[in-house]
């Protein structure tokens, strides 16, 4: 009994330390975003500002078109998510519940695709888009991510666990294979879809690498690309407003995750199908 309590205390402390380590930069960001310039560069470390400088937020919102950046983020992320779902859900269904000759080979290719980082293919894609004169457009930001091998893999694992008789019943009821995908398979894999949406939106909302390569027009800058404009200004790096801007662009993600937390965890963990 005593030993049990000790183990729990020890593991709680370990988890708290881990959480603190992960959250520290985040708190640091909040802290700086609320500090006036003279407090940011001091010798002693203090997490709490002496004077709360709300003006950082005002500067962040007014000095660069932050609303525009957020809007761009929404357009790009929802565009990417839409196409990823459009392509990976039917593909995953075919791999999980249909019999065809090259099934194993194609699934092998999907798994192999998971091993290739985007950075490897970035240059060929960049060159291709350049030839097509599509750089510096929403298309350039969305098209390279329109399919997702991770999405295919995640949904395939989910669909493979669903009972075959469910899909047979749907066929008997007159549903086409397409209708089965959207009316039966997808609604039943809601946890997986939520998890996938969070992964996808987080990755592309936060992505700086590709927008930096593919775009230069501030009018289509995504949020992380946009806050770089703080740095580019002549006055040097304006750290307070920069952190305030960073706060504003991460807030939607945090809210999204908090809302979908339970579904997300179910989707990532096992996400069994309740009968």
């Amino acid at each position, binding site marked *: 009994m005593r030993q049990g309590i000790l183990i729990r205390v020890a593991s709680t402390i370990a988890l708290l330390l881990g959480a603190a380590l992960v959250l520290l930069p985040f708190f640091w960001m909040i802290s700086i975003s609320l500090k006036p310039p003279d407090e940011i560069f001091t010798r002693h470390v203090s997490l709490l500002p002496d004077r709360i400088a709300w003006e950082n937020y005002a500067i962040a919102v007014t000095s660069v078109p932050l609303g525009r950046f957020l809007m761009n983020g929404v357009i790009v992320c929802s565009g990417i998510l839409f196409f990823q779902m459009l392509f990976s859900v039917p593909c995953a269904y075919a791999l999980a519940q249909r019999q065809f000759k090259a099934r194993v080979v194609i699934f092998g290719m999907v798994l192999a695709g998971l091993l290739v980082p985007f950075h490897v293919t970035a240059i060929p894609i960049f060159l291709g888009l350049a030839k097509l004169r599509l750089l510096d457009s929403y298309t350039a930001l969305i098209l390279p991510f329109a399919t997702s091998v991770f999405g295919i893999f995640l949904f395939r694992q989910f669909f493979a666990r669903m009972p075959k008789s469910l899909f*047979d*019943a749907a*066929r*008997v009821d007159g549903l086409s294979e397409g209708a089965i995908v959207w009316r039966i398979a997808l609604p*039943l894999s809601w946890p997986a879809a939520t998890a996938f949406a969070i992964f996808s939106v987080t990755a592309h909302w936060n992505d700086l690498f590709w927008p930096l390569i593919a775009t230069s027009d501030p009018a289509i800058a995504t949020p992380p690309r946009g806050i770089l404009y703080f740095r580019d200004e002549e006055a040097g790096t304006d750290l307070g407003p920069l952190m305030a801007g960073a706060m504003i662009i991460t807030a939607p993600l945090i809210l999204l995750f908090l809302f979908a937390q339970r579904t997300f965890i179910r989707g990532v963990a096992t996400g069994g199908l309740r009968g």
Partner: protein
Amino acid sequence: MDDYGSEDVMGFQAVSRRFGSTEILKDLTLSISDGAFTAILGPSGCGKSTTLRLMAGLDQPTEGSVTMFGRDVSEKRPAERNIAMVFQSYALYPHLSVAENIALPLLMRETSAFQRLPLISKFSTSSRSKRAGIFERVKAIAEMLDLGDLLHRKPGQLSGGQQQRVAVGRALVRDPTLFLLDEPLSNLDAKLRIQMRSELSALHRRTGRAFVYVTHDQTEAMGMADRILLMLDGRVIQDGTPRSLYEQPQNTKVAGFIGGHSMNFLVLQRGATSAGGLFAGLGLSCSDPSMEMTLGIRPEHLDLDPDGPLYGKVEHVEYLGGETMIELLLDRQIGLETGSKLRALVSSARVPFGLGDAINLGCKPELVHVFESGSGERIRTGIEKAA
């Protein structure tokens, strides 16, 4: 051949189905008569579920053709065949309510893809009026199946019996030409199973449609079906009424499978037919003494008889209430292989003996089945029965 009806809803012509190198169905030819309740009976792995899937159009034959009313439907999809299927697991859509589950087949058949689009379905008047009509029929079906109060529940909130009813409702609502039922009762408890059995029979009478009922449970098949196709190893080994399967099994396999208690098989020694003995003692005579024969006698057809030709020592007694199963080690002198045993079901009131006692059993000659030892086929000709 019995006459089950005028027209065949469904027919198989020389259908084979192979999965890789395993042949599940071998050159299967059968027909399902309109309006009849046909059971496909067989042990697991005999190909009965594959047969049903081929009928449904969920699977295609490797060879041969599937017809409906004489027309080839091998390439037709399930919905085009207008069949309904009830699955062993019920296969209800967990995310849809009972009403939506039952309505889905109608919705797919009677509304266009455009009318089913998420927003159109809510705001288009033609789509809404169609939906209203469909849900009226769904309601009527649900009332009939005692599901009226459950229309808005999800399948996960229903009991097994209720889920079963929803599955039946979903099959019923589109008024199919053929009902296919794949072991629909095997997930229910014993009491509910018996209740659902009579409900399904009543449903068959009311709809007047052809039912094909796949099961491994012979009491279900015997009790409900007008006709049984007994399958073994991908072939139909006997096709007939429940009574004909029980009374005239075509071979030892059918004889061994059908019946509540497995049949006794007694292998006669060569020449036993001519020398009188047991064969004559049972009231049988044969014109061809060279034949090697096996006698089949059901335990329930044996009775205590002081002059009976089957005698031996009681080896085991099982009291079953009204009846008692006794196992007899048959005497060597009867003319059977040594160590032959016989199980007999006798009325418990008539058991004044115990283990080790010697008793005689008899059987009416018309209840003795005679099979050829080698092939196991029933011998019809040349056997005289003193009925």
